[in-house]
């Protein structure tokens, strides 16, 4: 049986061998770029595929345990799998397979300019670390793998280090990820101390033994640490900087799966390690998710950089996932475990769906970047005629992320709504109010997301090209398109057949929460909560297809007498049709910029340069309308200034005087001797 322990170990070993081979191929190909490029990524592909099989076995109930305490001090290496870990490995693998395939073609342009060997090694280490993090079962293993993942991704982010923007983004990413690491470390230490053990398995009982304040502190620290990795507001500022500058397949993985490991941590914190939770935690998570969702998509709406837009959109989707987590916590604390399982299943399904469509979108953005040389929406246009297949695949990704039926984004949003709408079964008014805010925020988020991707797809691909580069764009290579097509098929499959994976998610919920979500599946669709609501995506898709076919045939027959003619766009009889007359990305976002001006707090600058001889003649007009980074200005700069001030004051200690240093050493010795029992 595939869920046998040794067989699972075999698949895990096979996966690691794949990554090792990939890294080795990368190193061996230091002088042979083609070997590095193809070998490294094929190795990663193989490793990810093996991990996928491992994950499926784990979701089916397979178990595995690896314990090597002699390897390192403080507990050594401990790996184990349960359904939740297996699910997150599935998420990583499902995005890593097409990303590796994509990378084979995409990194061709790096040959000669950047070290493909370094890229290949870092890529394999990155994916391997991401696959192992959910398996970690003690503090040391977890933190070591977490750090490995962050470092590998840092090196991947700064691949194109000839740009200052990349180096700055990488630096910010490094600092913030280590700030998160520090928070995680402190939180783990608190929990380990309470439990008297570094093994995660011993923590759920111990967690509830912690005193109130320590319990809350541990939760806050761990939530901050994992929330930072996930990209929750206000800890998200590294995300829109780092994801655009990384190579597109790396952005796909970072946005698609690395931030999901933050979600993994949040799920563990909320449901596994800390035991029973007071209501305020679920409320805080739900509110944080709601704020992230709305603000994330609002920032995406006004951004003209295609990849940064996608990064902001990742913040939005993490917000949706965390709304589900918060709802699940609230349901559990209110004694409705089956609804908690429903919300958790919805959140996990959205995790998977987001990995699928976000990686597809980033791969598409990478193809556009390679074809046009720019990430700026205002320089694109008309790409649907130059790159029809890429455009179609990007459209599928856009439809999925906008949450439109019958794609996968809709199914998880539908499930989220079903969970949130069931909240009337709780009878505490504060909780009800929070849920109402969550529903409103989620609805607004999903409407704005649809608007955002009408803008992204419409401005980038439709109408006339706005620059010479866009006018000369060509389809990317077959491998890139194949990778994107694979992911698009995944989006469609996850949307039409939720019964493929939702039962496994339900089982995961049962493992964590001890209750079954009230979900019923059949070939057509899924029904939630008894008669509370049902959706049949396959039937909807079939109905759409049938009616579409009928209409096309009928109209072709009816309109047979009258043909079609191609003529210029109606421009009020104007003599020219140029790209200059089209709607711009900034113009499209204008209604939103005005309605939500209080949140954007943009700063307008108008500079008019007059002719020196007369104020009636204007030489130049410069207009800048920049969105302010409110979190950086309001939160981080004051924090950094305070730290700097504190550091300046602490510098007094570094007097340079040998005698004071000797006194420090003496004082520390005395303190240690007094404090140790």
């Amino acid at each position: 049986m595939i869920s046998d322990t040794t067989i699972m170990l075999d698949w895990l070993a096979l996966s690691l061998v794949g990554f090792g081979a990939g890294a080795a191929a990368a190193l061996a190909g230091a002088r042979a770029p083609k070997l590095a490029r193809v070998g490294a990524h094929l190795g990663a592909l193989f490793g990810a595929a093996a991990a996928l099989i491992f994950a499926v076995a784990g979701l089916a109930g397979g178990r595995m345990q690896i314990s090597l305490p002699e390897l390192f001090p403080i507990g050594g290496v401990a790996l184990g799998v349960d359904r939740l870990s297996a699910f997150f490995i599935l998420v990583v693998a499902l995005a890593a397979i097409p990303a590796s395939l994509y990378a084979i073609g995409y990194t061709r342009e790096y040959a000669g300019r950047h070290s493909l060997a370094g890229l290949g090694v870092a890529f394999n280490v990155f994916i391997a670390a991401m696959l192992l993090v959910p398996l970690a079962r003690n503090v040391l293993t977890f933190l070591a793998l977490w750090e490995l993942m962050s470092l590998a991704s840092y090196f991947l982010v700064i691949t194109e280090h000839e740009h200052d923007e990349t180096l700055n983004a990488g630096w910010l990413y490094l600092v913030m990820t280590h700030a998160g690491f520090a928070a995680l470390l402190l939180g783990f230490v608190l929990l380990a101390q309470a439990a008297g053990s570094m093994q995660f398995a011993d923590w759920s009982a111990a967690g509830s033994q912690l005193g109130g304040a320590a319990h809350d502190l541990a939760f806050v620290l761990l939530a901050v640490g994992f929330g930072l990795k996930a990209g929750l507001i206000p800890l998200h500022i590294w995300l829109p900087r780092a994801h655009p500058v990384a190579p597109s397949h790396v952005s796909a993985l970072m946005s698609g799966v690395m931030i999901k490991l933050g979600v993994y941590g949040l799920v563990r914190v909320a449901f596994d390690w800390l035991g029973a939770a007071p209501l305020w935690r679920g409320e805080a998570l739900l509110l944080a998710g709601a704020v992230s969702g709305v603000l994330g998509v609002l920032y995406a709406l006004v951004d003209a950089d295609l990849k940064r837009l996608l990064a902001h959109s990742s913040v939005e989707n993490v917000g949706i996932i965390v709304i589900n987590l918060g709802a699940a916590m609230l349901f559990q604390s209110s004694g409705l475990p089956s609804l908690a399982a429903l919300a958790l299943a919805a959140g996990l399904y959205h995790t998977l769906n987001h990995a699928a469509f976000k990686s597809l979108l980033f791969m598409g953005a990478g193809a556009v970047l390679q074809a046009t040389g720019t990430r700026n929406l205002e320089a694109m246009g008309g790409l649907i005629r130059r790159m029809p297949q890429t455009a179609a695949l990007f459209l599928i990704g856009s439809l999925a992320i906008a949450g439109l039926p019958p794609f996968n984004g809709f199914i998880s949003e539908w499930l989220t709504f079903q969970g949130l709408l069931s909240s009337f079964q709780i009878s505490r008014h504060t909780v009800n109010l929070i849920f109402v805010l969550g529903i409103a925020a989620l609805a607004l988020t999903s409407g704005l997301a649809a608007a955002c991707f009408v803008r992204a797809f419409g401005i980038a691909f439709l109408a006339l090209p706005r620059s010479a580069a866009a006018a000369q764009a060509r389809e990317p290579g077959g491998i890139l398109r194949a990778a994107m097509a694979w992911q698009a098929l995944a989006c469609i499959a996850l949307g039409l057949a939720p019964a493929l994976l939702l039962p496994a998610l339900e089982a995961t919920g049962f493992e964590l929460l001890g209750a079954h979500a009230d979900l019923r599946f059949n070939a057509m669709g899924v029904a939630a909560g008894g008669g509370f609501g049902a959706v049949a995506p396959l039937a909807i898709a079939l109905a759409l297809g049938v009616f579409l076919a009928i209409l096309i045939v009928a109209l072709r027959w009816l309109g047979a007498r009258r043909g079609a003619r191609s003529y210029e766009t109606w421009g009020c009889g104007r003599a020219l049709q140029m790209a200059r007359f089209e709607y711009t990305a900034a113009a499209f976002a204008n209604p939103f910029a005005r309605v939500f001006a209080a949140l954007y707090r943009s700063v307008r600058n108008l500079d008019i340069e007059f002719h020196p001889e007369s104020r009636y003649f204007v030489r130049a007009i410069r207009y800048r309308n920049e969105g302010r980074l409110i979190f950086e200005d309001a939160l981080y700069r004051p924090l950094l200034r305070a730290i700097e001030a504190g550091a300046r004051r602490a510098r007094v200690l570094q007097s340079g005087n040998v005698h004071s240093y000797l006194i420090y050493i003496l004082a520390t010795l005395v303190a240690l001797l007094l404090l140790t029992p």
Partner: protein
Amino acid sequence: MEHPSTEIAIEIAQLGLVGLASPLLVGLIRRMKARFQGRRGPSVLQPYRDLRKLFSKEVVVSENSSWIFRFTPYLLATTMLVSALIVPVLAATGAFSFLGNIIVLMYLFLLGTFFLALAGLDAGSAFGGMGSSREVAIAALAEPTVLIAIFGIALRAGTTSLDGMIVRFGAEPLLMLNAGHLLAFIAFFVVALAENGRLPVDNPATHLELTMIHEAMILEYSGRLLALVEWAAAMKLFLFLTLISNLFFPWGVALSATPVALLTAFLALALKLGIFAAAIALLETAVAKLRLFRVPELLTGSFTVALLAVATSFF
């Protein structure tokens, strides 16, 4: 419960009703509006004549546009037809009500809006882009109101499936005797006006491109493509008003498949839609269009009303 072939026959009849009667609804509103303005007005059958004429016209397509431009009218009409399978038009329980609940319905509408907005951008005209931008802005801002209003109804009916809601309200009419129900109705009505491009959000009869929202997106369409777009818009209005009538005032909806019940349902629907048509015509005559950037205020107002609806349902 009912014999499946009977249910399917009823669904097909409902589909036919929605498809065939929706231009009549539009014609009725136009005629009533004309009468309120003191003129004779067009015949109520005028939309049918317009559609007939459009089929005899050539299709002129912009040379800048792509397959999305030609595909969108078909998709729009298709989403409306599939939505017609979900909305309880005559009978509360339909053969296809398993397709989805009210949330699925709202997102099917959003699917149509998404593609229409893309089609507006496709030809590369500034009018189309402007219309698309405004349309998606209004659709996005109307979403919270819709969902909160749905929450208000769902928590009293105990379900989000449309047939379940109507059956519940039909069985226990006292559930509707609630300020929350009325408030949810008002919120939903405002959203219906916004989503269908009626005054005070959008003037369907305007000729000034700068004041257009829905019309601006379809300026490039002609011939049978335009016919599909107009028909889809009429169906959307019909479905929205049917949804509101049968959800908030479910009297007359057929709970069984007997011919008497169906006939009563048909007459009741005709009466309810007639009243709504008159209300819309009166509103369009009495009220002027709001400035675009005051529409969010209107939608925020309707959101507040929906919040009140939910709040009253909790007490």
